[in-house]
């Protein structure tokens, strides 16, 4: 059966996103867990009983917080880049290996940091600017100040993916994202809303387990540490779903607007042996020009 990408509907995209997540669950979970280890560590430290027991001075606590923040940022950058690279290759049925993944993303980490910082500045500035006009209105009308910022966030949603997958520079990624997301802001907003609702539901759901932990025959400190640990692991479980959705949105937009599915199919057109681009000369894993479509079960 031929390997072909196709344009996915809203529902199909969600189905494929979760399929991509489950199919790559272990590497995604490990990457996210390791990258979020500083956050988990910080949350455990923040448990009141632990704080009191450690008896850290204010300076030491502040230094710990700063170091943890730096590690958190580095971890977030690394996990975003690695999961994006891994998922894009897996979706295209390519498996270059972990060393190749890391080799691909290392030069893109600093530009990615720049992209995120600039994005935060731009969105913040837009919200601040419109807040000056709408901020004086009563709630909920004052929320209108957020609308332009959310619009820009949706339009620039694919910029990090473009930077990682295509290796573009920061401003080129922004420009390309703006071109790809023309007339798609509302659709992307719907995805972000549902992702947020899933995260919210999972957070609140795991918080509802607190009464269960209180009844365990353990000291209060241990109960709280286990509870914080569980909360963190549950968050780590849900985080990669956002990356899967982002990757699929990106490829879906490329298929719709640039015919990427055709280009991908052409790239797999069988070459005579010995020709450049021959799959037998270090092309895709599994051999053959046409590995099965992700949606096929033949």
């Amino acid at each position: 059966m031929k390997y072909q990408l196709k344009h996915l509907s809203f529902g199909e995209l969600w189905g494929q996103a979760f399929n991509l997540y489950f199919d790559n669950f272990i590497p995604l979970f490990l990457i996210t867990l390791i990258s979020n280890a500083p956050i988990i560590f910080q949350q455990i430290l923040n448990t009141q009983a632990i704080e009191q027991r450690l008896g850290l001075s204010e300076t030491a606590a502040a230094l710990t917080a700063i170091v943890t923040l730096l590690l958190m940022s580095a971890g977030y950058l690394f996990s975003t880049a690695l999961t994006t690279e891994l998922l894009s290759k897996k979706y295209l049925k390519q498996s270059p290996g972990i060393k190749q993944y890391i080799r691909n993303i290392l030069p893109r980490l600093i530009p990615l940091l720049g992209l995120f910082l600039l994005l935060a500045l731009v969105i913040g500035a837009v919200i601040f600017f419109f807040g000056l006009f709408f901020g004086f209105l009563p709630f909920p009308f004052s929320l209108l100040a957020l609308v332009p910022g959310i619009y820009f966030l949706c339009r620039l949603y694919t910029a990090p993916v473009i930077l990682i997958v295509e290796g573009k520079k920061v401003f080129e990624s922004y420009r390309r994202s703006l071109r790809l997301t023309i007339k798609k802001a509302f659709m992307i907003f719907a995805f972000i809303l549902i992702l947020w609702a899933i995260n919210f539901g999972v957070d609140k759901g795991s918080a509802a387990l607190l009464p269960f932990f209180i009844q365990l025959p353990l000291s209060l400190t241990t109960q709280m540490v286990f509870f914080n640990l569980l909360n963190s692991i549950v968050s780590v479980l849900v985080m990669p779903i956002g990356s899967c959705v982002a990757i699929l949105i990106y490829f879906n937009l490329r298929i719709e607007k640039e015919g990427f599915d055709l280009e991908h199919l052409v790239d797999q057109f069988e070459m005579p042996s010995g020709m450049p681009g021959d799959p037998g000369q270090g092309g895709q894993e599994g051999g053959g020009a046409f590995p099965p479509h992700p949606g096929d079960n033949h």
Partner: protein
Amino acid sequence: MRQETIYIETPEKIVFYYKIAQIGARVAAYVLDVVIQLAVIILVLLLISAVSGLGMTSLEPGGESQAFYLTVAFFYLLYFFFQWGYFALFELLRQGQSPGKRMLRIHVIRSDGEPLDAASILIRNLLRAVDGFPFLNILGGLVAMIDKKSRRFGDMVGDTLVVHEVRFDLKEPEFETRLSEQVVKGPGLELTRKLSEEELFVIRRFLQERYKIPKDRLREIASKLAGRVVQRLNIETSQVEKDPVLFLERVYKEHTVADEE
């Protein structure tokens, strides 16, 4: 192994297929339904409190009034309706589609292809009490993750499935006028016979969907594909350089003629 498609044979021996809605689409539809339910509850309660003159401050202990109890009563009525009636009512009246499912373009069907009946709808929705354990349909979600047809308990007992709406894909490629056939020559019937079904599939797909590709990319992709055909068939490249798209049309048409012969 996850099952993506289900084939249903009618008593008249007609086989048709549905694409099964995977766990992701079902989760997203459920989230949308919950958001709609919450929005309706909040709106209705705000309306009631506005009409009955109840302000938010009267929700303090000791400050309750009849209006407060009225609001609470409406809240529980709405909660009961949404818990037990929302999904069943919409699936009954809207061909197996709640509002969330409608947005995701998925709907409920019976697994034997028969029309959805009230008994199936009732059973699958009553079992939400089990699927909803301990909260937020976690047990139902876990069961759907394990089941190869992505069914929760309610679907298994009610003998239903959730599938995507049927979409029809496009048609045979359209070709340019006869004038173009004189401009570009194809490789000839004998050579085009060498192309395999997979290779022809790629060319046909390109010709079917070329109109959606931006013009600046079209020639690039066409040149790439035409170049590979040329190397595959070991022929000269001059016809490709004139117009790669028309060259590919000629190749496809010649292969189709060769097939018919």
